[in-house]
């Protein structure tokens, strides 16, 4: 047995390519089974015909792609794009100082503080959104608090509008921004900051010319991790937006569920995927080398 094991190890040591293949096999399987295959299924469905009562007929057609030139889709895509972009900016504004503080001043509490950032993921997403509804409602904590100290006489509408949707999106995806930023700030070589100080750079200059450029990778990966799920979100606009602020994810859901047209819904899903990729490619190019992005992931 041992000799077989040794021979196997020896073989792998000598054949670099096979070794890489073996080591990558689990990851490859994961990506193929859970990312590539589902997308291929969606692609296949987008060419099928929808039958009676929402059943799917396995007859190939291009009809679905004729129907996706829908002005409403592009209007909703634009709105979702803007909401997701605002979310990214807000997450960055809140997440960067937070990650910076943890990385530079967290001391021995760092692991605990990072744990606190992830903690919300341990409870149900739905429950957390309902908690926000009680915070923002007309008789919620904010409105009754402001009324109590006499700042306002009538409740200000905080819930069931675009404001509530942005609050919900920012809250939900903040950890996705904080964690990559923390990783890049944590890895930042402090000696570079000392060197900058020795050379006479003021703290603001140190930050702008050293810290910020060196954490660019974290900013990019954090932004992508926030932007992509935020643009497809449909629960937040449904619950916090009162179903009045529709985003593109809901539009696609309605094709599947309300219209019972799975092939058409699949075609719209792919269109969304392509549009998001088109948006992201120039961003990644402008924001830094792909290497910086990969480093952070």
């Amino acid at each position, binding site marked *: 047995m041992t000799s077989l094991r040794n021979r196997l190890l020896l073989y792998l040591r000598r054949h670099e390519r096979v070794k890489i293949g073996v080591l990558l096999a689990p990851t490859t399987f994961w990506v193929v089974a859970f990312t590539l295959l589902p997308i291929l299924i969606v692609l296949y469905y987008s060419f099928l015909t929808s039958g009676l*009562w929402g*059943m799917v007929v396995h007859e190939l057609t291009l009809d679905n792609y004729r129907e996706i030139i829908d002005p409403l889709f592009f209007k909703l895509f634009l709105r979702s794009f803007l909401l997701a972009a605002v979310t990214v900016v807000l997450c960055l504004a809140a997440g960067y100082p937070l990650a910076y503080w943890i990385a530079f001043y967290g001391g021995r509490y760092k692991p605990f503080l990072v744990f606190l950032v992830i903690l919300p993921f341990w409870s149900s997403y739905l429950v957390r959104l309902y908690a926000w509804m009680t915070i923002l409602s*007309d008789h919620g904590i904010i409105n009754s608090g402001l009324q109590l100290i006499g700042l306002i006489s009538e409740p200000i509408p905080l819930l069931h509008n675009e404001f509530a949707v942005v609050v919900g999106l920012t809250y939900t995806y903040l950890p996705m921004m904080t964690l990559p930023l923390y990783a890049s700030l944590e890895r930042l070589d402090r000696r570079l900051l000392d060197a900058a100080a020795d050379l006479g750079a003021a703290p603001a200059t140190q930050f702008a010319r050293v810290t910020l450029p060196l954490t660019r990778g974290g900013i990019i990966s954090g932004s992508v991790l926030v932007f992509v799920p935020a643009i497809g979100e449909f629960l937040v606009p449904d619950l916090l937006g009162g*179903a009045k602020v529709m985003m593109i994810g809901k539009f696609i859901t*309605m094709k599947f*569920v*309300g219209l*019972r047209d799975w092939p058409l819904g699949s075609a719209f899903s792919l269109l969304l995927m392509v549009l998001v990729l088109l948006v992201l490619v120039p961003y990644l190019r402008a924001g830094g080398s792909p290497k910086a992005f990969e480093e952070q992931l």
Partner: protein
Amino acid sequence: METENANRYRDVSAARRHARRPLTRRRFIVEAAALGFSGSLYGQTTTPAEPLQPDSAALRRVKREGSTLYIYNWEDYFHPDTIPEFEQLYRTKVVYDAYPGNEHMLAKLQTGGVSYDVIFPTHSFIPILVAQNLLSPLRRHYLPNRANIMPRFLDTHFDPGNKYSLPYTWGMTAIGYNSKYVKEDPNLGSWALIFDSGPQRYSGKIGFTDEREEVIAAALKYKGFSANTHKESELREAGKILVNIKPHLKAFYPGTDEKKAFITEDIVVGHSWNGEVVKAGEKNNAVKWSLPKEGGTGWYDAMVIGRQAPHKFTAHAFMNFLMRPDIAAKNSAAVGYATPNQTALQTIVAPEIAANPAVYPTAKDMKKIEFLATIPDHILPVYSDIWTRLLS
């Protein structure tokens, strides 16, 4: 609170002692006669004496099936004691999954790969489930408590002969309002309360359910059209009315959320299910029900067994259990909707509930209620388009 209420309803005399509104003997007799005993409206049945404990053969079968039952139902759609009681009685474990709407339920069942035992679709979805071969035929001899069900809810054209389904609860969809804010409004008693008075008097304080067919039906009724019209022009007109009212809406509420909004007075008028208004009224006395003169819609939620159900015998036992008069009355009281269980209504449901027109409409009101039909495939894109445009 819920448990407390249900226990109260169980004991009729206690319920009468604690009744909020004084109930004279005369009024009780008159109203009971108008309701439960008018054979034309709610029908009459005889009650077979049903042993409460399952026999050992039944218990063995449940055990052989694995002592588990998968339920797929609307959220919070039982009395909190119902499932524990069944689990204890049949020594089985019940897993309860909830869905937010019929369409989601249908989509999930269509994918296959799920094997729910008992599902609770709204009447208009039964034909779709049957057409897709997603249901398992019922075995009548496992369901003796079926004899308790009112004839008007049996053999409907959604499931002739009840081959696949039996009714669980039923209700209406119309208007809830808060009498503190809705005062001296000439439009009270009409859909104009929402569509005409709404923009000026209740702007930002109006709620709607988020059920597509129900919302569109409200606007159709307001215009005096049938809720089941297939005329595209009428549907489009309803869509236009809804688009005009939308800026004045607080929200389209999913599930039971509108009830909470009525209680906290976030909304003062709303298109709502009667049960939500009734339950809200228990917490906030000012919340009242109105079935407008143009009429509202009616529905019943049914119990069906999934085609691939792994525990079919247990599923029948559960359905039969839900049709036991005391259980039916308890569930009905907890969720605020009417029971189609004749025996329960006559013998257990508290008289003030049985006489409440917000739960059990009078014979006259019953004529104003139109049951929603199944939307055929050729009209579905119109509905979908109106709804998408309204929400976008």
